[in-house]
């Protein structure tokens, strides 16, 4: 059937839904007639107006057939359906009069069929015609709704989007612009249509070349790519536009789209500048910078890192940092601690092992790279080669040592000169003794040769002569004193040997790495040097506890003890210069679970309250010029800090001072926000 094919070609359902409004059973003939329309028919039978309305409002009803109902019912149904309702076909009795059909039309029926003998042929034709019209009407309504929606969408786009739109005609004249264009190019309220682009766009924007081949009548591509154009705005700021063109129609009209991308441009410029800035810093800083992932593999290294580690920085990427970063104080390296525990370190001192096997002291700061959920996924290490600084530090320390020895020079000279004096004199004397002995032995030889065969008188004479010589050289005294002189000289040279050995030990350069050492021994050997020099004016008391070995820089600690002892000695000299008494230096060592304490007390002049806060300052000295460098205690303070320890002073003017040094067995890890404490003071 032709009409059926038409249904199927539309998007509408091929099933025809028909509501039959009938009295009980009255529509049977109607339904069988309607089944002949050739499509699948879905009948909904309704016996009341309300059932009819329910069926219609359920939707997709193509036709309502009212079977032998009065026109008033049709009108009521029509009213209840409202507008936009499916057509109604009224079926009237074959006996009904003519006005009945008219009434049905008046009540709103779209067509009317009489139940004549040809009813079964007529009704399907009528029904089909009504369904076709209704479906056409619905399709038209849907299309016009879509058009209206498209129009409002276009209106919204053109008027609301923050993009400037220009439509040009085939001659390159402006047809229309959107409100954003008027706002952006300040042409609000001006007559724009009919003008040319050069009348409404800044010249520098047009000159940028971005509009080339977009303006008719030059051959315009269907759609151009994006180009950038710049203009200097009235406010002096530069604005950047993304320019695109599109041919709109066969008439040759062109749409030009200008998007203001100044902000994006500015941001990307800033990002670029920042990136270059960061890159410049990273590449040019004098510090090495390594970025590692959570496994400890290097993901970035700057050139300085390459220089320090002795490789091109590109070759470092992918290698394990543990290849260089040695264990710290027998534990994992600081960088691995940062990776494992997320701890930060700032300005810590550590050692790295170079490929050549050499150890290099570095100052290192480690920062964990933490992602949003708090996990450490890598770390940044910044470090510097400290070997030069370390060398300078050692030089300063060495000079400090030499300076403190210089302060003891008078004592050293005395202590060496005394034994040298008597050794020298004894040697002189002993050579005389040897000469005397030579003379005596000559006489012995003579006596022996005479005795071996000479006459008795000759023997007597030789013996007398031997006795005379023995008396002359005082052989008895000589025998006793010779060995005494040898013994004393040996003792003297032994004393010099000790002094020289102590001095040599003391002035020896320390190792750059921490070593295990006995603090008692450090303080005792230092005290011995000082004691040798000052035994005339100072008595020593020592009270050493059994101490665990301490991981430290022993030579640096000796320097600290030397500084304190020299100060003590000078304070005592000053005090006894006044009252002539003998001074006392008392050294006490002790240990608890955390560390070792060394207390050195003297009976010197003491430190005035005014001076006490300043004694750890560099170059602060109360001594006469030439007596001290003024660096002793500040150097000592720095050394003790480097050991993670503390240095304190107690003093009473006129009674003496006590310096206490506390050294921890486990130096605290250098933490990020750790600040050095101010020198501690007690009264």
């Amino acid at each position, binding site marked *: 059937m032709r009409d059926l094919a038409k249904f199927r070609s539309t998007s509408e359902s091929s099933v025809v839904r028909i509501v039959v409004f009938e009295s009980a059973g009255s529509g049977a003939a109607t339904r069988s007639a309607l089944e002949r329309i050739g499509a699948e028919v879905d009948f909904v039978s309704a016996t009341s107006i309300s059932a009819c309305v329910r069926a219609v409002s359920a939707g997709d009803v193509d036709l309502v057939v009212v079977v032998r109902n009065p026109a008033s019912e049709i009108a009521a149904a029509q009213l209840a359906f409202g507008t936009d309702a499916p057509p109604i076909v009224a079926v009237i009795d074959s006996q009904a009069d003519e006005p009945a059909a008219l009434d049905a039309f008046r009540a709103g029926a779209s067509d009317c069929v009489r139940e004549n003998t040809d009813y079964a042929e007529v009704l399907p034709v009528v029904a089909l015609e009504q369904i076709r019209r209704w479906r056409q009407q619905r399709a038209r309504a849907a299309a016009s709704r879509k058009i209206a929606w498209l129009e409002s969408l276009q209106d919204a786009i053109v008027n609301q989007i923050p993009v400037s739109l220009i439509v040009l005609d085939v001659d390159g004249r402006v047809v229309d612009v959107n409100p954003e264009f008027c706002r952006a190019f300040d042409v609000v309220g001006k007559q724009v249509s009919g003008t040319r682009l050069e009348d409404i766009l800044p010249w520098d924007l047009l000159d940028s070349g971005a509009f080339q081949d977009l303006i008719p009548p030059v051959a315009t591509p269907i759609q151009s790519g994006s180009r950038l154009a710049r203009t200097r705005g009235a406010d002096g700021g530069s604005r950047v536009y993304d320019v695109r063109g599109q041919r709109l129609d066969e008439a040759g009209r062109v749409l030009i789209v200008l998007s203001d991308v100044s902000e994006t441009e500015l941001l990307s410029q800033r990002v670029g500048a920042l990136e270059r800035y960061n890159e410049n810093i990273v590449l040019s800083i004098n510090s090495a910078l390594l970025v590692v992932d959570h496994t400890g593999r290097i993901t970035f290294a700057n050139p300085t890192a390459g220089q320090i580690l002795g490789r091109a920085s590109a070759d470092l990427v992918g290698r394990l940092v543990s290849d260089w970063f040695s264990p710290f104080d027998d534990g994992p390296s600081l960088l691995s601690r940062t990776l494992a525990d997320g701890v930060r370190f700032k300005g810590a001192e550590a050692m790295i092992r170079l490929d050549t096997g050499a150890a290099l002291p570095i100052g290192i700061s480690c920062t964990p790279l933490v992602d949003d959920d708090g996990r450490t996924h890598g770390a940044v290490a910044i470090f510097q080669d400290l070997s030069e600084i370390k060398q300078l530090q050692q030089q300063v320390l060495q000079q400090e040592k030499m300076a403190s020895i210089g302060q003891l020079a008078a004592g050293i000279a005395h202590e*060496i000169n005394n034994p040298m004096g008597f050794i020298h004199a004894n040697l002189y004397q002993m050579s005389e003794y040897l000469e005397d002995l030579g003379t005596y032995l000559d006489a012995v030889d003579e006596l022996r040769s005479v005795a071996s065969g000479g006459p008795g008188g000759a023997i007597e004479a030789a013996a007398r002569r031997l006795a005379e010589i023995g008396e002359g050289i005082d052989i008895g005294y000589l025998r006793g004193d010779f060995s005494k002189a040898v013994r004393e000289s040996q003792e003297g040279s032994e004393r010099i040997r000790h002094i020289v050995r102590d001095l040599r030990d003391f002035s020896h350069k320390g190792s750059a790495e921490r070593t295990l050492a006995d603090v008692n021994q450090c303080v005792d050997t230092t005290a011995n040097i000082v004691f040798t020099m000052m035994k005339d004016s100072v008595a020593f008391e020592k009270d050493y506890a059994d101490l665990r070995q301490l991981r430290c820089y022993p030579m640096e600690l000796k320097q600290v003890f030397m500084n304190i002892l020299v100060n003590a000695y000078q304070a005592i000299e000053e005090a006894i210069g006044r009252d002539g008494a003998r001074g006392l230096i008392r050294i006490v060592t002790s240990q608890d679970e955390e560390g070792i304490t060394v207390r050195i007390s003297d009976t010197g002049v003491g430190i005035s309250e005014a001076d006490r806060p300043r004694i750890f300052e560099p170059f602060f000295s109360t001594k006469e010029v030439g007596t001290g460098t003024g660096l002793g205690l500040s150097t000592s303070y720095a050394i003790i800090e480097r050991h993670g320890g503390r240095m304190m002073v107690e003093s009473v003017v006129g009674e003496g001072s006590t310096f206490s040094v506390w050294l921890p067995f486990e130096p605290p890890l250098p933490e990020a926000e750790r600040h050095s404490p101010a020198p501690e003071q007690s009264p």
Partner: protein
Amino acid sequence: MSCVLIVDDEVRILNALERSLRREGWEILTADGPEQGLKILAERSVDLVLSDHKMPGMTGSEFLRVVSERWPDVVRVLITGWAEAVTETEVREIGIEALIPKPWDDAELKAVLRRHLG
């Protein structure tokens, strides 16, 4: 016979000096410090004092100053390893006849003493 008093807190120095001077024909007295030295000076007639400088309690120059005040005729000689310890003014004031450096040269020491003891 001339009498020489040697004062030094280091007994080995005393011994060595005594050895050196033993056969010069002088009487040699020794004291292990200024205190004992003053005691001997009070008891004996001494012609020359040879004193060390750095001694506990009293320095050699201080000791010789006392000697110069109480026994101005006694020749005063200082023997020291640290020449800067005594100023020239002190040497002049106290009337120290000679400064012998330590370690000393035996022949030089004897020559100086002979000159003053005749």
